[in-house]
Every structure is written in structure tokens, then in C-alpha cells.
């Protein structure tokens, strides 16, 4: 085989160029280090503008040893003087724009780390091979390149998704940066109503553009545009006000009452700007995660091999019944399928996917796995897209001295030296104290020589149980954090420099568990995955995917900077469930599923099972036991004294098509959101009546809705009821379905808002959103909705394994279930009927 390289021909003709070394052939035993060095040196001399030169090197320690592949990015054109090890063919790509040349060992194509492949193999290699110029490569070389189309395909699956993710994040960052830089001066501020503080803009410009920019954003208000601590509120709306003839200033309304916080002091004049610091920081962290992956800095050296082709993850071998460690003792009750999941998690090498529909005990399994790993002296990271899931998982951990949990949170760390680590440290001491007490009780019959120990340990146990945060310094807390073996953090937190490279704290974990995977975008997921030797992904792709916000890109589309197709592709990227794809792609040996649920009363489960038709959920310990356990004992009465909700009703449809006197109800559009006063009123009445019942005061209650505007209305209305704060807090217990995912309550009231005759739009017909909304209730689910609006709505429900998509009238089925097993009522229950005339 001949080797030619005409650099003059390459220069000025960007594209892909194959450079073959003599004797190159897959599997051939060659040692061409000298030639390679010569070639590279030649390239470097010729291309003095080359900025990036990446060399993939294959190292073989011994004749029989398994080859090890090393990626060496070279920052400059410096070429290693001596190249050891066998080299095969090379493929070069020369970019005119970036002046970058990338060289890859041909044999490594299937294993190529993404950083290299994304540049080299972003197209069809086979196609490129046909364009090879025989002047530079002889026939054998061309044949060789043509023989590897399979490898090219594999590489494409590796590089392409990452490039797309980077493109998406780059765009988000660019837009966020633009938003962060823009300020809007206001000359007057009317802060009489903290829920709608009005700012009068000096140079109003276009209301439409501003609305687009502010929609769903948090705004900062201050005299200094660079003040990152300026008061922050939620954008409500923009309106025009005629103040003097000929002048129509724009008024921006901002809500400063979110979270029930005190209204801040606001300047009379200053600037408004979109608060983008958090988003920019999060995007930077995610971009850094992609960079770390391309630089092969993952804790699992094989991550780049299987990340985009999960079939390559090492299979989990079936555990022999007599294998050591098989008969582990569970720290708490587990059903057989939960135990099987823990078994697999204990045996996994690369990856395990755990699918768990609502209430099937995902958190229980996570807690059990953490505890089993900790018992074996290993460290676990529990991550999730939101704090809630992390907190839940840490709360469920068995109280064992061997388990040392800690939750890492930047927001909390700002409040103290090590955030809330102190509270975990105190809790751990209490656990230690109890364990010592337990040992002492057992040792009571032991020999009298133990007397000294007994007194010493008794004192220690007592002290442990009495510790307070004041007993520990910041250094003590940090030391505990370094030795915590179950660390919790949000996905983004795990990518921050504080977490990844904190002195004394190892960010390498034996196992990384990511919960609520379906809610996280792949760049978010990647951050904790980079830190784990083994990865366990837990989720339910039949729940909500991450939120995609079109408005982020709208301006770029309008300015023709970004084609609309690209936005659509970004939407697919964000909302298509990576977990769903992954769960179907992986072999049986690296996935497991939970199907026995313990959360919902069987009647509620029956409604939720409409979304799991081909693989329905089963009642944990049998329907009778679950029904007994999920009693609510509530009774709500009509104005005339008759009961409309009885203790045996667990699924209730409260029809809001018409008001109490029979007038048709109407919902109202607020920007892109909606609200419904009738449902807000009905909801407030129901919650107030529940509050009056002693049985209800023992139960937890939440109100959820698909629409943000309805949440605002519900909070305002429920606040007026002055409900006991320890039982129901409108800020905590009223939320959108998207925000409420991961939570559960005994009683859940869902307000569906819409009233039109023919339901339009996909939002309320997304089966995942309906599934989440209706699966939050343990004992009683009350649906406030117009039956006539929702009855005919078609809901597309795909099979669990990605089979046929069925368009069902799911809402109608739920209404029918409520009629059959539960109750149906309407606003007339609040009205005293006139006695029939004699």
C-alpha cells in the first residue's frame, strides 16, 4: 500500500481526507510509530496554523494484554517525539474555518471517544471514501475504507447527539446572555400591590417584543443594573396606560409575593432586567459536562462507549443463588421485584435502568441500594433534576450507623459553612447513639468485665442523642461531608466546580443513582453520570419530560438567526424521553421494572391504569389490603345536608361545566395560560369544608392544575380562607402538575380549567401530564373539570414498550369510573335548594 499526502491539495479544500499508513489493516500487527511521527511532524510543519491536533493512541502492555486506548489532546502543534505502539490507518479532517486537523487511529473508530469522533465523523465516511482520490491513496486503501461503513454508522451515533446537544446549549446560552445584558429603565414604580407592582418604562418600544422577552421569566429591579442581589419578582403582564394626551407608556407588572415572602423595598426609578444569572450558570455547568465527556474525564472509563449505544453497557450476570453476598439482609420490607432490583444494582458493572410507575416504591429501592452499598464500604451519589426527589431519597434511608448521608446544596451552603450538612451530621449521631444503646441492651447479660465499657458507652450514647448543630464547627461538618457515603445533590449541583473539584472531597462514586430521569435533559443527566463508576437510572417515561420553552428561541427565529426547523429539532431533543429510548434499547439484563404500587387506593389506580393498559399496575399487597390501608373517612355534605362525598368514594368528578345556578362556565386566557374562577371557587369551598373535619386534618391535601394562571388564582382564593398553616399552605400545597411531579398527598384536587366545547391543543391531552396529575393522590382524588369539554377529548396513549399508539377517550373513561366507583357532583352542592312547593 502506498502512502501519499499532498498538503497543497488539502489546503484550501476543506473536507475529510484519508491518510493511510503502509500495511494498515484491521487486526494487522504493525508498528509504525516512526512513520506516524514523521507524518505528524510534517503536518505540523506545514500547517503552522493548526490549532488542534488530537491523536488517538492504542497502547498494548503485553502480547496477550487487552489493548488500552488513550486520547491525548495536544494543545499546540507540539508533536510527541517517539510514538510507541502499533498504529493503523489515519483519517484526517481539515476545517478551513477552524484551521483544525484531527487525526484518528482507524481501528479505534468503534471505540472512539466523542471528542474526536464528533469532528472527524460527522458525515458519512463510506460516502467520503468513494471520493478518495486515487492519486493520494491506492486501491487497497480505498477498499479498506469502504470495508468499514458499519464503524462509520456507529461513530455517527456517538458524535452526532453530542454535537446537537452542544448546539442547543450554545443557543440557549447566547440567548440568555443577550437577555441578561438588556436593561429597561423605568421612571416610576407603583408598589401598592406587591402582587402586581407596576413599573412605568421610559423608552417603551414594542410591547410584543417585551412580552416575548419577559414571558415566564423572573425580573430583577434595582438602581444598579449589575446588582445580582436586587429584588426579584415574577413577570405578570405588560399593559399600556394613557397618562397624558399623546403619551402611552408601557407598564410592566411584576409579582413580588411569590413564596409568601415579604415585599421588598423598591426604588422609585431604576432598571428592570431579566434575572438570568441562574440559567447562565446552569448552562455553563452543562456545557462543561459535555466538555469533560469529550475529554474522557468520566469516572467510568467505558462511559463514552455505551452512553449513546446502551447495548454496549456490560450486561449484569445472573446471580447464582449460592453466590457470596446474595443472601443480604434488607433494611426494611421489600417485595420480590424490589429485591430483584436491589440484587441487580449490587451486581452491576456499568449501567442499570429501573422503570417504576407512580407509587411502586422507586424511592424505597433507591434507599435500600444506598444502604447496601454503604454497608459494603462504598460511596453513592443520589442525584435528581430537582431537590425534592433528592430529599425524599435521603429521608427514606434506613437509620443505620453505617449510612452517613449528606445533602450538598449551594443555595443552602450560602446560609452556612457547609449548608445543611450539620443537620445530617446531628441525625447520624442520633442513629449512632441508638445503635450503641441497642448494643448495650443486648450486652446486659454479658460478663461483669464489661462494666467499664457499659458506663463509657452509655455516656457516649446519651451524648450522641443530645447533640445539636452547636456541637460542631464548620470544619467538623466539612470533614463529615468528605466521609459521607450517601451524598445527595441536584444534577446541576454535581457539575459545579465546587462539587467536582472541592479539596478533600472525592467526587468519584462507586454508584451514581439518578432519580426522576424523565424530568432531566441528557446534558443534565450527564453531570452526575460523569462521576460514577456504576450508573443506576431510575424513572418513568410515562411521566412528564423536561419542559421546553419555545419563547426562548422565538426572537432568534424572527431575526432569521435560527431556522424554525432547528427549534423543532431542539424541542424533540428536549422532550423526547431519553429514558424511554434507553429502556427499550438496552438488553433485558440491564433493566428492571416495578409494577406493584402501594400509593393509590385501587379505585384511583384503576384510573391511572388507563395509561399503563398493556402492563397494568397491581395493588401492592392485594386490592383488599390496599383499600383498607387507603381509607379517608371523609364526608362532604350538600347545602341541604345530604352527603355528596362518602368515605367509600375515592375518585370524584366534580363537573364544572355549569355554575350552581346552571349558567355555563367559561375559562379565561391569561397570556399563554388560562384560569377558571368557578373551579377556583369550588376548590376553595371544598378545601374549607375539609378543614372543618377532624378526619381531614390528619390527612395531607394538595391542589394542582395544568395552568400557572390557575395556580395564581387558586392561591389567592385559598389564602382568603385562612386555613391552618400547618395543615395547608397555599404556597406549598398548590402547584402546577409539572412542579408537583415527585410529590404525593392523601387528598389531591385537580383543576383542569378548560371549558370550551371542543378541546384544542396537545397540552391537556398529553397522557404523561394526565398520568402525573391523577397519580399523586393516595386516598382521594377530586377532579374539577367540565365533563362535556373533556369527555370527547382524544388522548394518544402509546404502549409501554413503544407499541401502537392508541387514541383513547381517557377522560371519559375516568368520568365513567368515577360514576361507577366514586362520585360525581357539581357546584349545585353548595346551593340550598328551595323546598318543593306543596
Amino acid at each position: 500500500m502506498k502512502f501519499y499526502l499532498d498538503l497543497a491539495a488539502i489546503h484550501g479544500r476543506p473536507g475529510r481526507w484519508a491518510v493511510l499508513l503502509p500495511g494498515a489493516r484491521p487486526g494487522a500487527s504493525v508498528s509504525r510509530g516512526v512513520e506516524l511521527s514523521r507524518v505528524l511532524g510534517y503536518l505540523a510543519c506545514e500547517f503552522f496554523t493548526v490549532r488542534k491536533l488530537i491523536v488517538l493512541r492504542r497502547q498494548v502492555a503485553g502480547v496477550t494484554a487487552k489493548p488500552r486506548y488513550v486520547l491525548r489532546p495536544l494543545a499546540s502543534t507540539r508533536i510527541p517525539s517517539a510514538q510507541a505502539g502499533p498504529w493503523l490507518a489515519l483519517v484526517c479532517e481539515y476545517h478551513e474555518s477552524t484551521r483544525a486537523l484531527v487525526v484518528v487511529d482507524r481501528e479505534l473508530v468503534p471505540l472512539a471517544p466523542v471528542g474526536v469522533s464528533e469532528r472527524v465523523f460527522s458525515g458519512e465516511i463510506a460516502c467520503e471514501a468513494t471520493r478518495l482520490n486515487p492519486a493520494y491513496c491506492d486501491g487497497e486503501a480505498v477498499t479498506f475504507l469502504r470495508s468499514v461503513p458499519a464503524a462509520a454508522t456507529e461513530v455517527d451515533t456517538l458524535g452526532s447527539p453530542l454535537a446537537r446537544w452542544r448546539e442547543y446549549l450554545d443557543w440557549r446560552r447566547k440567548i440568555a446572555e443577550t437577555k441578561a445584558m438588556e436593561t429597561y429603565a423605568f421612571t416610576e414604580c407603583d408598589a401598592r400591590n406587591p402582587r402586581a407592582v407596576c413599573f412605568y418604562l421610559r423608552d417603551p418600544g414594542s410591547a410584543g417584543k417585551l412580552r416575548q422577552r419577559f414571558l415566564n421569566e423572573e425580573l430583577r429591579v434595582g438602581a444598579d443594573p449589575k446588582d445580582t442581589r436586587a429584588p426579584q419578582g415574577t413577570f405578570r403582564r405588560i399593559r399600556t396606560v394613557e397618562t397624558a394626551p399623546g403619551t402611552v407608556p408601557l407598564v410592566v407588572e411584576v409579582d413580588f409575593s411569590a413564596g409568601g415572602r415579604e415585599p421588598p423595598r423598591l426604588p422609585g426609578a431604576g432598571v428592570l432586567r431579566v434575572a438570568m444569572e441562574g440559567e447562565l450558570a446552569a448552562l455553563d455547568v452543562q456545557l462543561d459536562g459535555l466538555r469533560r465527556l469529550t475529554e474522557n474525564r468520566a469516572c467510568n472509563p467505558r462511559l463514552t462507549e455505551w452512553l449513546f449505544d446502551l447495548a454496549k453497557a456490560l450486561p449484569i450476570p445472573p446471580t447464582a443463588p449460592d453466590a457470596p453476598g446474595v443472601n443480604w439482609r434488607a433494611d426494611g420490607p421489600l417485595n420480590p421485584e424490589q429485591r430483584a432490583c436491589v440484587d441487580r444494582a449490587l451486581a452491576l458493572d456499568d449501567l442499570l435502568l429501573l422503570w417504576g410507575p407512580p407509587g411502586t416504591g422507586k424511592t424505597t429501592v433507591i434507599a435500600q441500594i444506598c444502604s447496601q452499598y454503604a454497608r459494603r464500604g462504598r460511596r453513592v451519589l443520589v442525584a435528581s433534576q430537582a431537590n425534592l426527589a433528592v430529599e425524599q431519597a435521603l429521608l427514606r434511608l434506613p437509620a443505620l450507623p453505617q449510612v452517613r448521608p449528606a445533602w450538598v446544596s449551594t443555595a443552602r451552603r450560602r446560609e452556612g459553612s457547609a449548608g445543611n450538612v450539620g443537620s445530617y451530621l446531628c441525625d447520624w449521631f442520633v442513629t449512632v447513639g441508638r445503635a450503641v444503646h441497642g448494643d448495650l441492651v443486648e450486652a446486659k447479660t454479658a460478663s461483669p468485665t464489661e462494666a467499664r465499657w457499659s458506663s463509657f458507652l452509655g455516656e457516649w450514647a446519651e451524648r450522641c442523642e443530645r447533640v445539636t448543630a452547636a456541637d460542631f464547627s464548620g470544619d467538623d461538618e466539612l470533614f463529615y461531608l468528605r466521609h459521607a457515603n450517601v451524598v445527595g445533590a441536584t444534577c446541576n449541583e454535581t457539575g459545579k466546580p465546587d462539587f467536582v473539584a472541592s479539596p478533600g472531597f472525592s467526587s468519584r462514586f462507586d454508584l451514581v443513582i439518578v432519580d426522576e430521569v424523565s424530568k432531566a435533559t441528557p446534558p443534565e443527566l450527564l453531570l452526575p453520570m460523569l462521576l460514577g463508576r456504576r450508573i443506576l437510572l431510575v424513572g418513568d417515561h410515562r411521566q412528564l419530560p423536561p419542559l421546553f420553552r419555545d419563547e426562548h428561541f422565538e426572537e432568534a427565529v424572527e431575526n432569521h438567526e435560527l431556522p424554525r426547523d432547528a427549534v423543532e429539532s431542539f424541542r424533540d431533543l428536549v422532550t423526547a424521553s431519553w429514558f424511554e429510548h434507553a429502556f427499550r434499547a438496552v438488553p433485558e439484563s440491564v433493566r428492571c421494572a416495578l409494577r406493584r404500587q402501594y400509593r393509590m387506593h385501587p379505585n384511583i389506580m384503576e384510573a391511572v391504569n388507563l395509561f399503563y393498559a398493556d402492563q397494568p399496575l397491581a395493588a401492592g399487597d392485594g386490592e383488599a389490603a390496599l383499600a383498607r390501608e387507603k381509607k379517608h373517612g371523609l364526608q362532604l355534605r350538600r347545602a341541604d345536608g345530604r352527603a355528596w362525598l362518602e368515605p367509600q368514594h375515592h375518585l370524584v368528578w366534580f363537573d364544572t361545566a355549569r355554575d350552581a345556578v346552571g349558567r355555563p362556565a367559561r375559562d379565561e386566557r391569561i397570556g399563554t395560560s388560562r384560569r377558571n374562577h368557578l373551579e377556583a371557587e369550588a376548590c376553595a369551598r371544598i378545601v374549607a369544608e375539609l378543614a372543618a373535619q377532624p378526619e381531614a386534618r390528619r390527612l395531607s391535601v394538595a391542589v394542582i392544575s395544568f395552568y400557572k394562571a390557575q395556580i395564581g388564582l387558586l392561591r389567592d382564593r385559598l389564602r382568603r380562607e385562612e386555613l391552618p398553616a400547618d395543615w395547608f399552605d397555599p404556597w406549598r400545597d398548590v402547584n402546577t402538575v409539572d412542579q408537583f411531579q415527585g410529590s404525593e398527598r392523601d387528598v389531591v384536587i385537580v383543576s383542569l380549567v378548560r371549558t370550551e366545547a371542543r378541546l384544542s391543543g396537545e397540552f391537556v391531552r398529553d397522557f404523561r401530564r394526565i398520568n402525573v396529575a391523577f397519580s399523586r393522590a393516595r386516598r382521594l382524588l377530586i377532579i374539577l373539570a367540565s365533563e362535556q369539554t373533556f369527555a370527547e377529548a382524544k388522548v394518544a396513549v402509546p404502549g409501554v414498550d413503544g407499541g401502537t399508539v392508541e387514541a383513547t377517550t381517557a377522560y371519559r373513561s375516568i368520568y365513567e369510573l368515577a360514576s361507577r366507583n366514586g362520585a360525581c357532583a357539581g357546584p349545585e352542592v353548595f346551593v340550598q335548594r328551595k323546598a318543593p312547593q306543596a
Partner: protein
Amino acid sequence: MSATNCIELDLACTFAPCRRLNPFHRVLLRAVETFPVGARPGFDELAQRLCLGERVFLDQAWKDIQAFRATDDDDFMQSRLSVAGEEALRAGWFIAGEQTVRRHTLYFRRDDGCAVQAERMEFAVVRAVRMPPAWSKQLTTERIAEVLAAQKPQERLQPGERLIALAADWSTAQEVRKAGLHH
């Protein structure tokens, strides 16, 4: 200020950065105190009996104890409590840095020793104090620390700093009364 005469007293206050004993420090000091040399368990056994799972917390605590010179030997198995160690166990904290002495003049009611806020007041000297009054024994570091915190906010202690010793100079103490007041 009442018409009662006061005692004007100079105090040399010794301050030092201190570190509170955490439960690991305390348990190790207690182990040294409880188990005599020869019958003392090692860190591995101790960690197991204390249900700590790992000895790493004890190792770290022992490093601190050595730094504070709370024992007379660096080897846990051979060590005994030093005076500093006994004091730390009693007080609940270690001295963890350089000591500094600052002088303060404070005023106490002659009859009961109650501290008097006397900033920006003018006093007339009545007589020198020949004998420390009976209440002089109540002038403990804890009490003077409280008086300083209340009367001299500019003397605010650094985080972790404590008043660890006190020397009252009774040779220069004098009985005073507010200028203009006459019995």
C-alpha cells in the same frame, strides 16, 4: 446610675481562639481517662464499639487532640490527659491559637459588685480600695465576658475567641462616685 459608690477596677483579660470539643474529641479524651494504659482499646475496637463504622473520625479527632496538647503522649495507647486535656474536658473547649491580653477598666457597685455601665461618665475618686470586697470572688471569666459583651461592643470577640483568664489589679482599684453626687 444610682448614687451608690462604685469600685473602679483594672482587669487584664486574656483572650484566645478556642475550639469547642466535638463529640469525637470528647469521647477520645474520656477513653484516655476511663481506660488505663494497657487496658485501652485501639481505634479499630473503639470505632466498632462506638458504632462509628470507620475509625477515620477518631483519627481526625486524635490529630486535633495532639495539636491542642491535650495528652502527654502522641500514642493514644500510651497517653494520659495533660492539664490542658483535663481543662478541655471540663470546660468543653480547647485553646486553639495564640493568646492575647487586653486591659479593661470596669466599674462595679461597691455594695453588691453589680457591673455598672459607666461609659462617658465622670467620676470623682473617694478613696483607694484597701481590701478586695467579698464579691470579688464572683468575678469569673464567664461573668466578665458577659459584662464586656454588654458594655464594650467594640470589644466584640472574633468567632471562636473566648476570655480564658482574668487578672484583677486590686492594688490600683479605687472607690469612686459620679462627679457632682454627694452623700
